[in-house]
């Protein structure tokens, strides 16, 4: 069992939030958007809908992403590595953006926090991993009262860290995605399945059949 230790070697921080425009969440409910679903949405809105609205069962790593917010999958831990203070597997939350999620690793160095997102593979074709880092940064800013300017993605396959700069543009993109996902979850309106190259790697391909729209449209039943 992990101990929820509240004491650690953090210096006191002064609060200076970046001047983000105040965000009004779409939903007035307590339904917080899971950071993982942002990634799914930017990968494919229809997939996001299938998983989070239609509750399509899938038995791969993604089921874990949807687990209830009250369960801890990893073990919380903290410690120092050289000069760097590290916290692993803690909850992240932002009330302003109604976001909730789980961090893989947060580092604190020279008075700065960095969220680090672990990815199994190598740098993917779709740059939606940065979205997740930025969403984590939004949560961390709210939780620590400090500005966060950068984070990292750690690709396990290549053992490389990739710097992610939390630019204004990335922030805007992330906030727009949060908004879109909240609208999706609130209305349940189905985004159309659209066939792209990404479909081949999607675990829901056989349920979604994105090619069916074209194929059925072109199909001429023989006599």
């Amino acid at each position, binding site marked *: 069992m992990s101990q929820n230790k509240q004491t650690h070697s953090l210096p006191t921080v002064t609060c200076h939030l970046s001047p983000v425009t105040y965000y009004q969440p779409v939903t007035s409910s307590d339904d917080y958007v899971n950071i993982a679903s942002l990634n799914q949405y930017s990968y494919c809105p229809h997939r996001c809908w299938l998983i989070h*609205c*239609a*509750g*399509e*069962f899938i038995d791969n790593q993604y089921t874990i992403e949807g687990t209830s917010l009250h369960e801890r999958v990893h073990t919380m831990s903290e410690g120092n590595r050289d000069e760097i203070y590290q916290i692993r597997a803690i909850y992240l939350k932002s009330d302003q953006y109604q976001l909730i999620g789980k961090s893989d690793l947060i580092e604190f160095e020279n008075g700065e926090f960095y969220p680090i997102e672990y990815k199994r593979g190598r740098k993917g074709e779709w740059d939606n991993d940065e979205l997740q880092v930025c969403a984590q940064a939004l949560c961390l800013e709210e939780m620590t009262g400090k500005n966060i300017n950068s984070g990292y993605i750690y690709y396990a396959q290549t053992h490389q860290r990739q710097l992610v700069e939390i630019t204004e543009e990335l922030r805007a993109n992330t906030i727009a995605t949060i908004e879109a996902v909240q609208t999706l979850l609130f209305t*349940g309106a*189905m985004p*159309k*399945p659209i066939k792209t190259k990404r479909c081949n790697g999607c675990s829901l391909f056989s*349920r979604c*059949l994105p*090619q*069916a*729209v074209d*194929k*059925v*449209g072109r*199909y001429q*039943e*023989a006599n």
Partner: protein
Amino acid sequence: MGTLYVSQADSFIGKVDERIHVKFEKKTIIDVAFIKLDGVVVLGRSTVSPAVVSELMNRHIPLSFIDERGHYLGRLQPEMSGNIFVRKAQWQAAGNTPQSVHIVQGFVRGKLKNYRQLLVRRQRESDHLDLAADITRLENIISAIDKTESIDSLRGLEGAGSAVYFGCFNRLIINPNFEFTKRVRRPPTDPVNSLLSFGYSLLRHDVQSAVNIVGFDPFLGYLHFDRYNRPSLVLDLMEEFRPLVVDALVLTLLNKQFLKPDDFISEPLSNAVSLTAEGRKIFLTNYEKKKQSEFKHPVMGKKCTYRESFELQARLLAKYLMGTTDKYPPLFIR
């Protein structure tokens, strides 16, 4: 992936690690890994252990029960799919809606075209079989389907087409030991009808699995709309598959002498006919083989098995109902 049929009466179905074991008189007669199963069908009386029940439910594998005579009793169903959107679309189209008419036209057209195709193929294969008149009659009924907008009239066309088809079914049986006069059900009183009924029972289990997986409410149909308390949508979607899977299989088993008259038993008084244990084994083995056989799906343009096509057709139906696609294409194989 496949279905496990347990036809040995008084067997015990238990779980050993990750495998399902069927034991009879304390000896394991078959064991299969759970991961390879997508359905378990118990025929007659057997004991299913609680461990097997929970394992099947956890893995979303349905467990169906069919009695000794091949009557479908019911099933133990994993939790219903959370996809309420499919069910909502399904209910919204119910009754006399344009969507419902389109779907019913599809079911009836698919079935009758496959009927006709079966006759055409048999005619080609044999020199002394003359089905031209029946084929023409079926053609005429088929050509009326897309002009018919009333569901009742479509049911009439389906009935007329079936009458033509079963009217010449006896001529498709070249085994002199078997005779077919007309469809007799509940109970079937001759071997051919008993095979058809048994086959349709098995097909129902398979199509119901597909309908459930996709998230439909199995009890709300379009062609079978007038009766409640039966899985109407399953019966609807079965139509196009009856000739493709069951009828074709029954004809093969009879004509190639897989089954002989002594594979059947008949009850006193009721005259209900059913397969012997040995005959049932032959039928089940070949039914499963048939389901695993491959063909090129005319819509998707790629190879698939009949087993996969049940789910594929259910998904295509869901897509049409949800407005993703512009039509429902029934499975028609030339």
